[in-house]
């Protein structure tokens, strides 16, 4: 990316964080504008449910706003993502107590209707990408939450190991092993369920 833009953003963010810490809701809203897509997407990939993900993201932003005073420097993004993933764990606990709603999710899969952002592709490509995303999301759903969160942050959102360690509150070594296990498990799942993947995306063995 353009380095100058990145630096300007970082300075801007620090000022916004400082203002938000003083209780400036406008400044905090500008931070939300920057991070709401990230927060919602992490939550959606964690929960595979639009409503639950929206609830988790909203709850995360509100509790982050309340907790701003406790933010002690470092990466705001990682700090925020930690609150988001905690909100996701809360939602998962709620979902565990009400396991009936999963049937609705299977009937109406929101992943693949009109919510995808990219509309510049042909209908066939779109359909293929839908199938692909659905298969991968199903694989993600089968990972234990800790591994799922690590894989999402690393490979979907592109965070560094250090950022993930901060965002999940564990050591670098734990990040490494969770990522290794999560990726391997997902790979094995996708290899087992080859027919779920569109032909051109099937994993080639050797």
């Amino acid at each position, binding site marked *: 990316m353009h380095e100058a833009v990145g630096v300007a953003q970082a300075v801007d963010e620090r000022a916004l964080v400082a203002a938000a810490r003083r*209780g400036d*809701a406008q400044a*905090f*809203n500008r931070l*939300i*504008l920057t991070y*709401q*897509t990230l*927060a*919602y*997407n992490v939550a*959606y*990939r964690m929960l595979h449910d*639009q409503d639950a993900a*929206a609830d988790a*993201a*909203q709850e995360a*932003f*509100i509790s982050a*706003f*309340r907790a701003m005073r406790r933010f002690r420097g470092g990466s705001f993004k990682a700090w925020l993502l930690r609150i988001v993933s905690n909100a996701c764990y809360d939602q998962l606990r709620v979902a565990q107590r009400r396991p009936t709603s999963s049937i609705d999710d299977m009937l109406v899969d929101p*992943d693949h209707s009109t*919510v*995808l*952002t*990219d509309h510049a592709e042909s209908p066939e490509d779109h359909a293929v*990408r839908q199938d*692909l*995303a659905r298969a*991968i*999301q199903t694989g993600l759903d089968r990972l234990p939450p800790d591994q799922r969160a690590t*894989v999402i942050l690393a*490979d*979907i959102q*592109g965070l560094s*190991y250090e950022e993930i360690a901060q965002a999940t509150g564990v050591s670098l*070594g734990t990040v*490494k*092993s969770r*990522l*290794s296990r999560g*990726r*391997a498990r*997902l*790979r094995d799942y*996708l*290899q087992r369920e080859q027919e779920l993947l569109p032909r051109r*995306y099937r*994993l*080639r*063995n*050797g």
Partner: protein
Amino acid sequence: MFDFLKRWAKTEHELCQGDLSAFLDGRLTPKEHSRVERHLEECAACRADLEALRQTVALLHAMPVMKLPRSFLISAGEAIRQRQVQRRRLAYAYLRAATAVATVLLVLVVSGDVTLRYQAARPAPRVSRLRPAATTMLVETAAVEKGQEAWMQPSPELSTIVAPAESFGASEAEQTEAAQNALDAQTSEVRAVPSKAFATAAGSPVAPTAAPTATPRPTSTPVPPTPAVPVPSPQPAVGEVQDRGQLPPSLPSGPWAFLDVLRGFLPWIELALALAVALLLATTLWLHRRQRLV
């Protein structure tokens, strides 16, 4: 620490499997990296696994970004509400801390007071508790001075008991009485005071106007049996409490003076603490219920 041993016990193949993910990300040490590379050259299974892993990561990278179903911006009203919630929680936390501190302090002071009184009460004479009505006429300032020695001899007579009221002896007598009622701060306060108060209230019988907070409560702690000391009715004591402020300042000198002054104020400190605890506890409980309702 045991990682090292675990790694040691693994075969080269198992080691490589565990390192493939970090190998992809270039997060291995140079030594580990070349070791994996070496193994990959001779192990087709690991090469296949690495390739499949690379594709998996690529597929994850290509996952579509989901559009927001709505904005998560915080409205001005919501922000104010959240700040209020935050402030209320902070105040509540402080209140709870204050309540805890006050309660601990009260327990410490009362138990310390009780301990002191028990210790002081041991050599003290067995004195029958006097009815305040009978004592009011008897006290002179001179008697207060004499009391220094007088309290040493146990005497059932009124003058010897009442006279030392302000001196050290009086507090001994007072402590004997108080020991019965101990532990409950308010009760001990009410009962402990009279013997001193009687000394000063000479000639001016005070109407027992009940102070609002000094109403004796039933003590929940077991009262040590002291058959020699008939328990009086605390009723008249209630009024006497108020007179205590006018005590003549005749304090014993020496290293114990400070302690005695402190001891004189102890019932008041206890009363104030007990009131503070009651108030704080009531407020905390009230807020707790309200917060749950909101």
